[in-house]
């Protein structure tokens, strides 16, 4: 009996102790964070007094030797980093982190990389749970700037102005359009790693076959519609074997990219008002609905269901089912990978009168430091951001994905510019339009985008329904949601 008693007591103690380990761990972290905070504050003072030291080093980035700047802030330690990248981008990310760790090895700073798919946990609640639970990483990079901005509005990321000053990263020369996503209430929260431009991709062979001049691509919506009609091939049974353009394919399926190019401003930061009923927005919806009326949306969408996403050989542009598509510069890499024989040309997205001609919305991957990150670790994270902004680090990224720097002057150092690449020159020209921006960034960004996409789908499947009334309802609903925050 005594043995049973001892055994029961031991088991209960062990199990309770192990159950509580997790709880104790977090309280332990808080204590250690408190201690580190104090140390960090002291060290920050020391650093600001001594100033930073930046030197140049040559490190390995994959097989290449690259020259990088290394900044000594007089501290050493590790920080955790969640990256959203997958596939080839994840391979590149690993090379970048390895290069950082090599560059900062002597200074005792190390980045611990974890790949967290779906926007670095931003799209699936993982990041939210970790921030709420006090186990968030010290740095993330996400491909979903809209949701990141909503995280900023919720107070989930820390303002970076002080830490950027500390490590000497000046972001004032970044493209004005990128600053839409960087700043909230006058403080900088998100740093774009690079950016992308949206263009019209078209197949010149199909254009020629249809009697169109590939050297003179469409510039207005009317011309785009003419091209689309010319490229469309209808079979005897009424089905379509090829369409000119599907307006809601690829970037057209994003909430506000094309509406923004049509001239719409879904959210006014100055007044804090959502505006989905402007003339430009109604014009855009009318354009979308005109395609839905002309072609059966179910038949059109049959082209794009299945696995024919951007990075698969089933993409309708690659299979010749569409002659044109609105998408970002990264599509060139998808074409190179999955359909190297498909010819393509690019031009600025055609817009109607009053639209933003020769312009783009900036698609970007953003760095952010979650709230509650230890001050010292935030500095290490900022060092990584500074490291990642260097042209030598981004060179492979630019060359492979044709993404572009966030500063115009940095174009000159990119190999594609040096080689005189025409498409890259066009990207640069579009990137410099003063009309560029990132639309609808507000405290309800993610919900506004999702609800807008759902509304647009409804209008596509019911092309004769009243767009203005539905947009007005959504506008009121989202404004109320935003005002309640």
């Amino acid at each position: 009996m005594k043995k049973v008693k001892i055994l029961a007591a031991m088991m209960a103690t062990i199990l309770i102790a192990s159950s509580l380990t997790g709880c104790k761990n977090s309280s332990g972290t808080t204590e250690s964070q408190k201690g580190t905070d104090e140390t960090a504050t002291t060290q920050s003072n020391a650093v600001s007094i001594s100033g930073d030291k930046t030197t140049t080093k040559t490190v390995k980035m994959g097989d290449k030797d690259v020259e990088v700047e290394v900044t000594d802030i007089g501290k050493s330690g590790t920080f955790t980093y969640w990256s959203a990248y997958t596939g080839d981008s994840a391979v590149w990310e690993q090379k970048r982190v390895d290069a950082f760790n090599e560059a900062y090895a002597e200074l005792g700073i190390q980045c611990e990389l974890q790949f967290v798919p779906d926007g670095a946990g931003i799209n699936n609640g993982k990041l939210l749970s970790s921030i709420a639970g006090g186990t968030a990483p010290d740095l993330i990079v996400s491909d979903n700037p809209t949701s990141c901005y909503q995280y900023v509005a919720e107070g989930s990321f820390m303002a970076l102005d002080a830490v950027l000053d500390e490590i000497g990263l000046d972001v004032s020369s970044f493209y004005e359009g990128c600053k839409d996503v960087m700043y909230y209430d006058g403080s900088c929260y998100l740093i774009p790693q690079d950016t992308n431009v949206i263009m019209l991709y078209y197949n010149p062979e199909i254009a020629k076959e249809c009697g169109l001049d590939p050297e003179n691509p469409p510039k207005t919506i009317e011309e785009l519609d003419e091209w689309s009609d010319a490229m469309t091939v209808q079979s005897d049974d009424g089905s379509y074997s090829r369409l000119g353009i599907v307006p809601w394919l690829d970037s057209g399926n994003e909430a506000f990219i094309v509406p923004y190019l049509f001239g719409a401003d879904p959210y006014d930061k100055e007044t804090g008002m959502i505006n989905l009923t402007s003339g430009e927005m109604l014009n855009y919806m009318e354009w979308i609905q005109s395609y839905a009326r002309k072609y059966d949306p179910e038949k059109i969408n049959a082209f794009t269901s299945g696995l024919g996403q951007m990075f698969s050989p089933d993409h309708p542009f690659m299979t010749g089912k569409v002659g044109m598509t609105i998408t970002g510069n990264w599509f060139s890499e998808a074409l190179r990978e999955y359909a190297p024989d498909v010819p393509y040309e690019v031009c600025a997205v055609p817009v109607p009168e009053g639209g933003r001609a020769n312009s783009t919305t900036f698609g970007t991957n953003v760095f952010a430091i979650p709230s509650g990150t230890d001050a010292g670790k935030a500095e290490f994270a900022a060092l990584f951001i500074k490291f990642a902004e260097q042209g030598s680090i981004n060179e492979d990224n630019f060359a492979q994905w044709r993404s572009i720097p966030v500063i115009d002057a940095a174009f000159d150092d990119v190999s594609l510019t040096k080689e005189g690449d025409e498409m890259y020159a066009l990207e640069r020209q579009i990137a410099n339009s003063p009309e560029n921006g990132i639309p609808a960034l507000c405290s309800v960004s993610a919900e506004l985008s999702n609800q807008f996409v759902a509304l647009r789908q409804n209008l596509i499947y019911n092309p004769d329904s009243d767009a203005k009334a539905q947009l007005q309802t959504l506008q009121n609903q989202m404004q109320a949601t935003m005002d309640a925050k």
Partner: protein
Amino acid sequence: MKNSISKEFYEYKHSRMRRAEAKHGLLFILPWIIGFLGFTLYPILSSLYYSFCDYSVIKMPVFTGLKNYINLFRDSTFLTACKNTAYMIILGVPLTTFFAIAISVILNSKRLKHTSWFRVIFFIPTLVPTVVACLLWIWVMQPETGVVNTLLGYIGIKGPGWLASPAWAKPAFILMMIWTCGNAIIIYLAGLQDIPESLYEAAEIDGASFLRETISITLPLLRPTILYNMVTLVIGVFQWFAEPYIMTQGGPNNSTMFYSLYLYQNAFTYFKMGYASAQAWIMLIVAFIVILILFKFLKFGESNN
């Protein structure tokens, strides 16, 4: 004798040994009790409290009374999600149950040879991981080149757009549900094998047809098994998330926006944890009512006699 036993039991019940045993028992289950209180009961009660709050996880909850519940019934996406889930329960659950029972009855037939192989074949789909199954079904349902429409094309039928069509997306999911009903088939087979063979023999002597045997013997005696499978299926439909999340993200035109998917969006994409908690509690109550109706309809606890 009776008095002697009750006296012994009374003495044992109030003995030191009994108390010591109770303490040991409590000590053994203490970790579970702590786990239950901390990781099950506390979150459940928290969620009930949050359902009356404006709560974004990051900021502190602010009590708002019934606002979340009222707003939910004004939310058109929520109402669409309710309709879609109801569609699956009213149409998908009975259809899946029908096919599972039909396949089980066939597989249980003495006249059929090599039934164990067939059982394996029908069970295999349940072993396929959900993500893989979803990707597979995206291919199978592809309107242009998918297997289903290709087969339909051979018999002169032009297949619909399936996942690209607001009208056919839910039936596509029902087909997938039927494909993965291997677990239910195994349970139905166990239930069928519990039915005494003598009842069928007696029915045959009386000249009953296969259909009459099925209606008068098989289905009534299989009732508890049907109830169990339908209840688990209904709960499964309410919690259905992975398939629409991977395959359609709720589209096209919100036609596959099911209850759990919208709940997830509110909680983790829109930072509306209080709103999502209210949605979860409504789901609990509705699921409870649906299950009570099933209990009533399938006469839970009543004897077959």
